[in-house]
């Protein structure tokens, strides 16, 4: 009885996690089943082993520019994350180590960022992009993503820097390190978990973006995977296997990244490092 009771939370949690992952499972299940199985009034919950096939994946790889969109998404995500992280590391370090007006200013913009509707800000951004002739240029989306990421990423990095004793870089100064050198050589290696947490936050935000890419990239060859996938709703409505295969493929990179970096992310979020 006692043993049963101690197993209860784990079993419940596992059960709940499986229920919560049902939408993902269902996407995958649909993508590997033939249409005849799917279009049923009472579809079987488990795939019929003999009917499993990957035709939908072959078909979308052949008939849609999905690889192109994948590459576009990857390009935009990498640049958005890299630049955001660079900016956030510098700003976070400054906020953590020096008392400046920057504290109030960045805090204020973090607040504004959390209240500003994305659909409002995209109107002037569209106007600006248009006058700079950057419509259909991924750079426009990268820059817009950066604005969405930087305020909170900076605050995250500040939290991580706060948890590292100042004495460490002071020891570095004694040894003749410059401030910047001390940051790169001494402090950054110690914030590796923080960098991982901020990195995954940035990447997920950039990869998930739909609004900015949808509004600023009008040429289908420039679309990201989210915009491309959504463009097939309606058009491919009857080909559920293909549609689900596309949706499932588009989340694989983020799921992999999340599984690799989740411990850092949770530790960063739960250690109180980001309480500000």
């Amino acid at each position, binding site marked *: 009885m006692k043993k049963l009771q101690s197993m209860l939370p*784990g079993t419940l949690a596992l059960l709940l996690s499986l229920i919560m992952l049902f939408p993902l499972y269902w996407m995958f299940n649909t993508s590997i089943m033939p249409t005849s199985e799917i279009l049923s009034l009472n579809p079987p919950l488990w795939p019929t082993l003999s009917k499993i096939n990957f035709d939908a994946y072959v078909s979308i790889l052949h008939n849609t520019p999905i690889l192109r969109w994948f590459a576009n998404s990857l390009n935009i995500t990498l640049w958005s994350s890299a630049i955001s992280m660079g900016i956030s590391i510098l700003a976070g370090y400054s906020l953590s180590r020096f008392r400046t007006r920057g504290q109030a200013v960045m805090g204020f913009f973090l607040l504004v960022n959390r209240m500003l509707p994305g659909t409002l800000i995209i109107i002037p951004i569209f*106007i600006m992009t248009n006058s700079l002739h950057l419509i259909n240029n991924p750079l426009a989306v990268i820059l817009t993503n950066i604005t969405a990421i930087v305020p909170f990423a900076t605050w995250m990095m500040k939290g991580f820097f706060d948890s590292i004793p100042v004495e460490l870089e002071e020891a570095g100064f004694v040894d003749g390190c410059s401030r910047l050198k001390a940051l790169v050589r001494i402090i950054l290696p110690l914030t590796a978990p923080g960098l991982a947490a901020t990195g995954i936050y940035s990447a997920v935000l950039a990869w998930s973006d739909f609004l900015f890419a949808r509004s600023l990239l009008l040429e289908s060859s420039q679309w990201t995977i989210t915009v491309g*996938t959504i463009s097939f709703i309606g058009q491919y409505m009857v080909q559920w296997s293909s549609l689900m295969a596309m949706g499932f493929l588009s989340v694989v990179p983020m799921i992999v990244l999340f599984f690799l970096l989740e411990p850092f992310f949770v530790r960063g979020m739960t250690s109180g490092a980001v309480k500000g």
Partner: protein
Amino acid sequence: MNTKRNAVFAYGLLVPALLVVAVLLVYPMYLALNASFRKGQTSNFSKINELPFTLDNYQNILTDSAFWHSLWISIQYTFFSTAIGFAIGLVTALLLNRNFRGRRLVRTLILVPWAIPGVVVSLGFIWILDASYGIMNAMLRSLGIISANIAWLSNPNYALWAVILPTAWKGYPFFTLMLLAALQSVPVELYEAGRVDGASKWRLFANITWPGIRPAAVLSLVLNGLWAFREFDFIYSMTRGGPMGATETLAVKIYNQAFSFFHQSAAAALGMLTFLICIISVLTVYPLIKEQFFGGSR
């Protein structure tokens, strides 16, 4: 000398961040505010500032019943997606706070929806909620809850629920994370003392757990509420605001006005009002959250 050099260094590090904020947040905000006071429409977005000044946009919006309808839809959408997300988040956080084998893996599994793009979540739910072959209808039928299929996305009575579901699904891991962090800081000794006094499980929760996590709960509710209130991806990809405006929240209405009907000034004014509503809401609850507004993720 040294302090002066430090100050230069301190501000120097902030320059890139401030530049991004100034060019891509402050200036666009100025453009939007300016556009919201302009009369008429133009097919050339760049020429919007040459239009004459007017207050009409705001007046038209506030006297239009469609605005109040959208506000009401936004409130319902925000309330229910946040409430459902919070309930799932609280249960999962309480479970993950217990010790069991494989906890790390289960925690990762439970948090996965956070990493899935909103529009892909929507895509999955469009299929799940499909009127003819969706698994939701099949399950509800086999459980005897409904006798005939429901057209979740095209029936105005159900469409709002259809967009609330994926929003709550994507949103709950945020609550799990915030509440789990708070739970882990509740001293274990308190529970031991409570158990010695013979307190029931419910009393332990009400008198120890809840007071311990209440600040984090309130903050996460506010942050998630703000997120849902401004959310665009789910609704746009599932219904575009339809059927018959049943899911047209303010955030979606702004986009439709600007990019489907090309009423940029009206859209900007609507966006400003939406922004204002967010500011007023935050100011209202500010005393409750000021301690830790800058914590949490999103």
